[in-house]
């Protein structure tokens, strides 16, 4: 029989999990990858809010209706000459009264399409449900009850990819509009860029960016020093310390599912 048995129902568990997950901010991510024929560099931050908690014996806590709120900065760079045709202004002639017919030289202006960079920012929520396994462990003089995600939850990224692709189109039009002589090619260029990227490639990249925030996600639900003071020193009595010898966590099914923590200690 354990020295201490503590139990929490799902209502209390929800509160525990929400508090624990809020205390563990998710580190920002950055990287680069291909986006269709283009290169993309990105940085992203995210936070998770928990919807409901569902205890599942023997050791699973399912977090349902969670929301991953992400903020993404994407920089796409590409060589416009890959999508725009070579183009030279034709020779132009006029009659100048004091000279006669004069012409600017043929192929005086051939447009060298530059490499441009398109910055795109996008924020949004992604909903998911994930199972976490209870993992009690002793580490560095502390007993921890960690929750470790099981598998990788499915993320519905299609809507976000569609929104980002539209944002890329708007940003591309803005970036392109300042390039001299691109005017007649502008609409086609924007279309070529968004078509070359495509929803599928963007969804793939978004998955690369967003999934690491969740896959392997671990946070600590409970943390307690193995040795701690329960009564302070009161001369002539010394402080009373106890040592937690073991700690176990599980989900048990009684009349309702509960998170049960069992502790053995020695004074």
């Amino acid at each position, binding site marked *: 029989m354990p020295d201490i048995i503590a139990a929490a129902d799902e209502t209390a568990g929800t509160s525990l999990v929400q508090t624990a997950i809020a205390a563990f901010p998710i580190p920002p991510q950055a990287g680069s990858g291909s986006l269709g024929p283009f290169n993309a560099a990105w940085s992203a931050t995210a936070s998770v809010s928990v919807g409901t908690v569902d205890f599942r014996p023997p050791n699973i806590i399912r977090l349902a209706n969670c929301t991953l709120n992400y903020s993404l900065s994407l920089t796409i760079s590409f060589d416009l000459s890959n999508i725009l045709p070579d183009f030279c*202004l*034709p*020779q*132009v*002639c*006029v009659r*100048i*009264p*004091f*000279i*006669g*017919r*004069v*012409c*600017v*030289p043929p*192929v*005086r*202006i*051939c447009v*060298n399409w530059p490499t441009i960079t398109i910055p795109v920012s996008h924020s949004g929520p992604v909903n998911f449900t994930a199972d976490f396994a209870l993992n009690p462990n002793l580490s560095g003089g502390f007993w921890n009850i960690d929750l470790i995600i099981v598998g990788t939850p499915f993320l519905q990224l299609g809507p976000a990819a569609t929104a980002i692709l539209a944002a890329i189109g708007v940003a591309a039009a803005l970036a392109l*509009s*300042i*390039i*001299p*002589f*691109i*005017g*007649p*090619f*502008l*609409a*086609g260029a924007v279309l070529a860029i968004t078509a070359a990227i495509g929803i599928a490639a963007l969804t793939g990249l978004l998955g690369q960016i967003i999934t690491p925030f969740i896959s392997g996600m671990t946070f600590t639900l409970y943390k307690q020093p193995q040795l701690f003071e329960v009564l302070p020193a009161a001369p002539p009595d010394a402080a009373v310390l106890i040592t937690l010898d073991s700690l176990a966590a599980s989900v048990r099914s009684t009349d309702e599912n509960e998170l049960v923590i069992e502790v053995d200690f020695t004074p």
Partner: protein
Amino acid sequence: MDMLDSRSLRYSDCFMQKFAMPGTVRYRLTTPAGACLPIEEEGAYTIEVATGAGRPEGEGRQHNVLVGRKDGRLVADPPQLRIEAGDAVLWHAPDAAIIGWSVQGEGDGGAFSSAALRREAVYTHAFGTPGEYKWVDANEGRVSGTVIVRMLDSRDAEQCRKWLAALEEGAMVEIDGDTVKPEALEIVAGQTVFWAVHKAGGITITDARLAGGEN
């Protein structure tokens, strides 16, 4: 938005000068920073202007000089020219990396400069981006005008066809003293405007934003 400034020529610009008097013309390629320096023998290019063959006024020939960069210096190709009185020389640098150059010279017909257009000179600029461009004379401020550059709807095939045709048509602004005709001009992006200076006091064709004026 692109910028136009006859004092600081780019790949989208040309400068042209008519030479009416026989004699030797010496000129150099420089930047606005070197505008006040004298034209020294070393590094100067020459144009030999022979007596005209009796061509009527307004029937001069055009000679082109390519401006490039070699060993960090602006160079003219060909370095020497032989022309006839009444002919004109056009300078242009097709390399977009060569920016901010000007032409300054002197001869029996007087001095000439792309940074101070005086007599029978032409400045051209191809407008690459739409917008409203107010140009002024940055030297004396006595002439000014506006060029409105329209965008076209490139999804419309008919507009594209008209645009390609329009590119081959230059637009002209004539300046004689303080008179500018027309003062306002409307073109489509990609078209070239020719400023033909009959006679003036050493003016520039400069984007008002560069001259400190209003856009």
